[in-house]
């Protein structure tokens, strides 16, 4: 076991939690991420591996919620896989072993900051932040769009009053500020 102590994307030893009215925004450092990109000519084999891993192959705008691994669509023949960090810090290596030559696997764990936004009013928060039609998104939907020039993913979890937001890690502070400001504005 190595001897380096991690910090969260917002710079703390512990994840940040903000509660405003009925809503809670929680920084979630407990997610390991890796991108899966099917290699040319191996698309179907890659999907077979994905299906075997998580039960289905999510199409455009969708995720497959599953334990411990899950994944969402990020582009044509591209997915982002996620799993609990504590047990899957080496997710990329695990996937590489599983997918072999059928996919390019890239570690993405620390490329992103993850926020969980829960509670009554989260749809109104998203309406102040970005152009996605949050009210028609159902559990399992995963969209990428832009908040104040920052590209980010929003995933509708189960239950539906739970959104998972993945943004660029280096801009965690800016994204957090934007979300909290919107939470206060709609509270």
């Amino acid at each position, binding site marked *: *076991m*190595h*001897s*380096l*102590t*991690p*910090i*969260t*994307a917002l*710079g703390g030893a512990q994840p940040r939690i903000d509660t405003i009215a009925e809503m809670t925004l929680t920084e979630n*450092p407990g997610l390991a991420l890796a*991108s899966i*990109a099917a*290699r*040319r*000519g191996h698309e179907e084999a890659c999907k077979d591996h994905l299906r075997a891993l998580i039960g289905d192959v999510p199409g455009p705008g969708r995720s497959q919620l599953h334990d411990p691994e899950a994944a969402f669509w990020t582009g044509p023949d*591209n997915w982002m896989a996620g799993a609990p960090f504590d047990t899957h810090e*080496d997710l990329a290596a695990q996937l590489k072993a599983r997918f072999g030559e059928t996919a*390019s696997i*890239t*570690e*993405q*764990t*620390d*490329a*992103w900051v993850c926020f969980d936004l829960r509670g009554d009013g989260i749809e109104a928060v998203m*309406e*102040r932040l*970005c*152009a*996605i*039609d949050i*009210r*028609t998104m159902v559990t399992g939907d995963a969209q990428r769009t832009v908040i*104040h*020039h*920052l590209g980010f993913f929003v995933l509708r979890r189960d239950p539906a009053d739970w959104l998972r937001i993945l943004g*660029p*890690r*280096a*801009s*965690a*502070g*800016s*994204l957090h*500020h*934007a979300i909290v*400001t*919107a939470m*206060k*504005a709609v*509270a």
Partner: protein
Amino acid sequence: MSQPNRLSGGLIDRSAELSFSFAGEIYKGHPGDTLASALLANDVRLMGRSFKYHRPRGPLAAGSEEPNAIVELRSGARREPNTRATTAELYDGLVAEPQNCWPSLRLDAMAINDKLSNFLTAGFYYKTFMWPAAFWEKLYEPIIRKAAGLGSLSMEEDPDTYDKGFLHCDLLVTGGGAAGLMAALTAGRAGRSVILADEDFTFGGRLLAERESVGGMAGADWAAQAVAELATLPSVRLMPRTTVIGAFDHGIHGALERVSDHLAVPAEGKPRQILWRIYAEQSLLCAGAIERPIAFENNDRPGIMLAGALRTYANRYAATPARRVAIFTCNDNGHRSAADLHAQGIEIAAVIDTRADAPDSDNYPVHKGAQVIDSRGRLDLKSVRVREADGTEHMIPCGALGVSGGWNPNVHLTCHQRGRPVWDDALSAFVPGKDLPPGMTVAGAARGIFSTHGALASGADGAAEALGIAAADVPTADDAPVSQTPFWYVEGCSRAWLDQQNDVTVKDVKLSHQEGFRSVEHLKRYTTLGMATDQGKTSNIGGLAIMAEIAGKSIPEVGTTIFRPPYTPVAIGAFAGRMRGKEFHPTRLTPSHYWAEERGAVFVEVGNWLRAQWFPLPGEKHWRESVDREVRATRASVGVCDCTTLGKIDVQGVDAAAFLNKLYCNGFAKLAVGKVRYGLMLREDGIAMDDGTAARLAEDHFVVTTTTANAGRVYQHMEFVRQCLFPDMDVQLVSTTEAWAQYAVAGPNARKLLQKVVDPEFDLSNEAFPFMACGEITVCGGLRARLFRISFSGELAYELAVPARYGDAMMRRLMDEGAEFDVVPYGTEALGVMRIEKGHAAGNELNGTTTALELGMGRMVSTKKDSIGTVLSKREGLNEEAGLRLVGVKPLNPADRITAGGHLMNAGGPVDAAHDQGYVTSAAYSPDMGSMIGLAFVKSGDARLGEKMRLVSPVTDLTVDVELASAHFIDPEGGRQRA
């Protein structure tokens, strides 16, 4: 003081009293009042001075089309000029001041302009202030701006915040009157998502202002009942106080919601306004109609207003501008106002109707075939002069005059995509044309359907057709046909106002025609008709009608100007939203940021990143002291710099090497696994685009770096090459810039330091891990990491990457373990100094105009393979021998300055553009050289090393004698980095 002009009834809440001030006087009003209705109830008609002639003015209308009653609302930093009193919702403590008057509203010094009106006609400014040109900026403009102009800015920062928001719906209904409410009911009952937006604070539109029944109850009650039902429907979003300001491409509408304008101060954390972007599959415009005035001499006195507005004030606001009122009309609408006011106990002095066959009344005298030809009253209306059908003239005393020239459908939003309204002969008005914004339909009075029943039915049908559903049942309501006979202006009038906000008269329109401005667009710009903040909602048609008559054409032949967004003025703050100053400017922090903050680093912004620029130590008074120390310490022992910000792109796939061969002008196919190579990327036109390194971690896996500022653009370019140019290469790209914390460890003791953190099974010896080696390793007891032996500083150097969450701890560990070597952190300034000393090109040199040849890398452009930019890089013009080449520059006198941007001239000869020899791109003080040094592009520079030249910068008045040198000031053989 009581409210002398307050009537009974109305939709105001008499149980509460609100106190407000106007022009320093304190008045009382009620919830439900606007500032204008409350002032009228308090017998205040004079609310402002006009723009050009400073004539006394009061409200003309009761809604957002108001041209006259504009005030400065609120005080201090929240003061907002040019706010319409007719839409400002009254709240307790409201403060308003009249504008464009000095020293006071009642005694305005600039009213002298009115006496000079013969000189101030259309085109006055154009004609008078033409010469001499220099006078315009210094003399004329400041004077004119001071004399004219409307309200004034507070010149303080706006303390309020503004939000932006995004909404989606099947149907957007603009306007919540009879048509809009029925449309929303139709859509909402069918479960379709519908947004009903109205600029007013109460839904109902004209139903609130009329005394007619809908479905067997008062119109206002029916509206309230409809709103109550809509509020229970889950797919309906009711948006009062929300103005749809524009209809943009593909069903996108802009809407401004005034969240807090009816409050003294917004609630904590809440915005003042929200600018919504509404994505509507379909939109139904139910914006109603706007009444048009009749032009006659001195028709602009306070107390003269639209007849429908008089009715609105009486029925909705229980207020009247005066107790004795006359009506001037050319249609039945004027009589309706007379009847309603009479029912409220107002004395109707006369109804002056231009029609010989006007209807009679038992309650007031009707003057048939008569016209109002003039008015009297210094600060407000005292009497009107009437010319009877037989030509006799007499005065009729009255405190207010309601004028009705008929109604114009409110077609504003139908024009926002260059749609032109069309003339309707039956209505004598423009109605929406066929070229509406895609997805938009129009219902109710906005479509020219003026009866209440017609409006209700067309709203229901409009929504039903737009959504393919059944229309809701329509309640019973008045369905009498409405006809309008046009009557635009009184024969022979001259100073008869068309556009009251911009002070444009009938005389101005005639003059404009006389001077040759025949197109309506020219008329508009020459006279400024319709160019004020109200966009001529009440005036454009009158101007067109007069122009048509003078030209001997019909109105449709003359044509019409079109309306443009926004429908009503929008505060700049609403367009800016939260993006003010640094707010919501995304900032990127490096993994060592918090540590660097603790060390007192000074930060600089690069491509949204905050990078440590230098790390001052106690006692260092000047940044140069810190930077020189960081450079010396790194070159003497070891320094560490956070270089996470360089773009990192993961390139994988069987064709990864072939792909990089296309991307970079130099070759990558033969790069061995475990090696790094410098790469230069060209644009297709042969100009250098970006540079970086590509490390081959496996046969099918590279990690490519880009410069910090170009990371996004290069990634986009790589995806373009991958998807659009070579669509079947097996290559996959992922940005990993933020995933890894990456630190440059540079200096003679770099290896010794790294050996203390890299796990012992990895051999860092020069033999095992030579210059330009790379590999996946572990550090600190098993943490996955990557190591690249590359050098930007010219020293023995490595770049070490660990997952970003461990970056903070890694930096602290490097500092701890490096203490025995006196390790220093260094910032971007020291980084810059060392790369200039080494002659490495950076953004200043890759400036979008330079080629590989100019950068001294001409031989890197492979002739054995095709890559982006190869073909055009061979163009003759880019390959001249006398072309620019990158060289070093040093001053002959070490104390002299070298400045980036300075130009190089021959030692003798003229100093001018024709003799320009090149320019300096980068400059820094080199502690090693003991002087400033620079990098420069000089004509045939590579052949002129040692030549003495002059560095000039006329802008900074600099002339320095310099000598050209190799760009590699330090260790030109590169022995250090290979050590």
